[in-house]
């Protein structure tokens, strides 16, 4: 007899519906799975058999064929174990076809018959079109975020069968266990660093990419870690996208929907695939997608391989990254705020504090940052070690809450211009959105004429100046102070091969 059970598989961050077809027929006993399963999926055979036996069921000594339709797309992971088991039981007439009508199943089986969690529950459930979906009990809350089909949880195969046969009632889906998360680091902890604090605030308000350069111990990492606390909570769309990405990457979602701006800080040993996304078989989202709508922090940016850094350029521009593999190509959302931190030179002291690097070591270090990548940083700020006096006696600065309120207001003003943040202001709108005072205009012209600024740099300076004016609560015209500060916050890089 033939049975068909709906389920889904993961492709990138999206679920694809899959129909699990099972036929049990006379013939030489055997069990084959067809329809482009990957290794984990093919191994379902052994898991399903063991799970059935441990649940007190018998294994049919007949010929079993499982097809995963549509057979053109690759099925990844072990999430199809449960639907295969159910389809087999129906086809073997141990389970009434009526009892599973209108139901889809997602879950991995353990050898003891337990139903285990699978990564990507959110996008998988989104792909389901039936009335009810059965998921591992521990994924129940996650599945409920979608708001689509009715969610039922299953802890073991045995208890699931009892529920399906009406012998027991469905277990309650446990709610999210939101652990008390440690409070986000507060900007008030940063002593001194007036310029660094301003830069972080501008980055948060305008979505401007930020490069912090300074000696070790200057507080670059400390500043960067305070950035997510300044960002407003995600809106519903961003929240759903971020949740889908987290779910697809198999990361836990302790609070349900991702509501706060994510903060990802990969180590500089990260590979290209880890950062961009990819992998064999199951194409996973990379760090740049996990930081979608949040902050990607690259500490010791000069230590990242050049190829990895340059791969960031296209997603920075487009907000999505397309990962192409021989078997599939997938688009991941990747609209993130890039924050880099770097030492001024390999020894970390910098020119001004007795650097001991050779000319060539410095030139090599500088070459890591290609011109086009550096160009994408609207804010390039030099931070120094704070004064001893400031460290010991200086008062606490503004708290994150105060700054976050200004950031939210600045972002609201940006939305009135039709963009999410000022960094996204299109060049053609700049003259209209960022009118500058005549004296500021003449300063900009001087900069342009003395090659202190490129044409693209000019656009970026104007966007930053717009954000500064928004933060200050000034009117439409951007004054000298904002334009000059925007210029100061965009330090032109030192060229590696300058003749001096």
């Amino acid at each position, binding site marked *: 007899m033939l049975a068909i059970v709906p389920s889904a598989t993961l492709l990138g961050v999206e679920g694809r519906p899959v129909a699990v077809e099972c036929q049990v027929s006379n013939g030489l006993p055997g069990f084959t799975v067809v329809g482009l399963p990957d290794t984990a999926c093919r191994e379902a055979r052994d898991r399903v058999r063991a799970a059935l036996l441990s649940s007190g069921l018998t294994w049919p000594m007949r010929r079993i064929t499982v097809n995963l339709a549509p057979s053109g797309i690759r099925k990844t992971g072990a999430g199809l174990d449960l639907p295969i088991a159910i389809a087999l039981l129906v086809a073997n007439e141990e389970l009434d076809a009526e009892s599973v009508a209108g139901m889809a199943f997602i879950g991995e089986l353990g050898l003891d018959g337990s139903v285990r969690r699978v990564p990507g529950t959110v996008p998988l459930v989104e792909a389901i079109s039936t009335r009810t979906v059965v998921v591992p009990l521990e994924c129940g809350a996650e599945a409920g975020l979608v708001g689509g089909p009715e969610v039922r949880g299953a802890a073991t195969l045995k208890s699931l069968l009892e529920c399906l046969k009406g012998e027991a009632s469905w277990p309650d889906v446990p709610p999210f266990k939101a652990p008390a998360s440690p409070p986000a680091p507060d900007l008030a902890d940063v002593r*001194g*660093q*007036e*310029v*660094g604090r*301003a830069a972080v605030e501008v980055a948060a308000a305008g979505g401007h990419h930020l490069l912090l*350069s300074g000696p070790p111990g200057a507080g670059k990492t400390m500043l960067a870690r305070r950035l997510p606390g300044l960002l407003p909570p995600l809106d519903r769309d961003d929240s759903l996208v971020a949740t889908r990405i987290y779910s697809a990457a198999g990361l836990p979602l302790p609070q349900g929907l991702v509501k706060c701006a994510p903060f990802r800080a990969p180590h500089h040993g990260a590979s290209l695939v880890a950062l961009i996304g990819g992998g064999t078989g199951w194409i996973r989202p990379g760090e740049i997608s996990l930081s979608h709508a949040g902050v990607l922090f690259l500490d010791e940016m000069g230590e990242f391989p050049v190829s990895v850094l340059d791969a960031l350029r296209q997603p920075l521009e487009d907000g999505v990254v397309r990962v192409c593999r021989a078997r599939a190509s997938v688009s991941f959302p990747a609209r993130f705020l890039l924050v880099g931190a770097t030492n001024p030179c390999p020894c970390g002291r910098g*020119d*001004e*504090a*007795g*650097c001991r690097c050779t*000319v060539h070591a*410095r030139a090599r270090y500088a070459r890591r940052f290609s011109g086009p990548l550096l160009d994408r940083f609207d804010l*390039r*700020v*030099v*931070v*120094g070690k704070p*004064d001893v006096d*400031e460290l010991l006696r200086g008062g606490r600065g503004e708290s994150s809450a105060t700054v976050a309120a200004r950031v939210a207001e600045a972002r609201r003003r940006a939305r009135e211009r039709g963009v999410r943040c000022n960094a996204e202001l299109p060049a053609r709108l700049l003259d209209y959105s960022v009118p500058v005072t005549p004296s500021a205009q003449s*300063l900009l012209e*001087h900069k342009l004429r003395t090659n*202190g600024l490129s044409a693209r740099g000019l656009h970026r300076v104007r966007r930053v100046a717009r954000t*500064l004016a928004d933060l200050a609560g000034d009117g439409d015209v951007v004054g*000298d*102070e*904002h334009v*000059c*500060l925007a*210029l*100061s*916050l965009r*330090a*032109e*890089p*030192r060229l590696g*091969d*300058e*003749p*001096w």
Partner: protein
Amino acid sequence: MVSGSAGLPPEAYAAALAGMPGVGPARLRELLDRWSPVEAWEAAGDPRVDVAERWSLYVEGGVAVHLRGSAGYPPTLVDDHEAPALLFSVGDVGVVDGPRVAIIGSRRCTRYGRDVAFDLGRDLARIGVRVVSGLALGIDGAAHLGVLAAGDGAAPPVAVVGSGLDVVYPRAHRRLWTQVAEAGVVLSEAPLGARPEPWRFPARNRILAALADVVVVVESRTKGGSFHTVQAADQRGVTVMAVPGPVRSPASAYTNELLVSGSPPARDVDDVLVALDLRGRGPKRKRGSSATAQPPPDDPHQAALLEAMGWQPSSLDQLVVRTGLSPGQASVALAHLEVGGWIVGQAGWWERDSSTH
């Protein structure tokens, strides 16, 4: 006898010998002291090498070859105890005659050092003093740029380099290298094709010291290459002068040390002329008539910033702390100072600029 070599000058054999692997300056001098170039080639040369072919490279490249004691060889070098047996030159080797001052210093200099080197180079050249330097990054290059900026009638630049004359090093100085060769002369003891190996630079520095009447160290860190030149100058009794620098600047650590150990200070071209015994030939002007005497800007913020900056590179962060201005106020004042030519900003650091005032 190598076939087809008839009619070649002795310099051709000497140059071919210098190009042999394993023949350094000392070995070459030993060989050429004992034998004539042709005999030396027959004794130590590689018979598979075509001397004529090698020689054609020098002829085509416009590289002159001077044996020690021959007509083109700089007379001051002849009697030096470590004089190179063979000297290669591009340009007019005759320009070496006349008073000569070597301006040397760190490759990684500050704007202060660069400005001082530039000014010294320009002012010395205008008075007719040959500026000898190594065409390296930093102080060396700045001094020669100063010479080239001195205008018509100025003394030509003299460069002594470590690599072969067809191997431009550092590559960033390709243009400067050509300009110096056109206006003056570029000397080297390395044969064509010689890579800029590290050992060649201390060896080059002894030629610099031997050529100079006075050596001026503009900026140098404690373990800089200037150390070798100063040592070589001391051995030869050449006066070493040092440009005083801020006591906290690591780039001036060695020059300040030299001053402590008794080297005369070189504040400007007049001090160097005194050491050269050319007093009175300097331009008629009062000492300190440059930026230090410029009236400070009217704007109080700008004046405060200049005061806070001193002559050290400073970041916006430091300036904000020192002046108490807000970052915005400081930025406005800095922008105006930059337009006015008071300061130069680069890579997030601001420095006072003396060259435009």
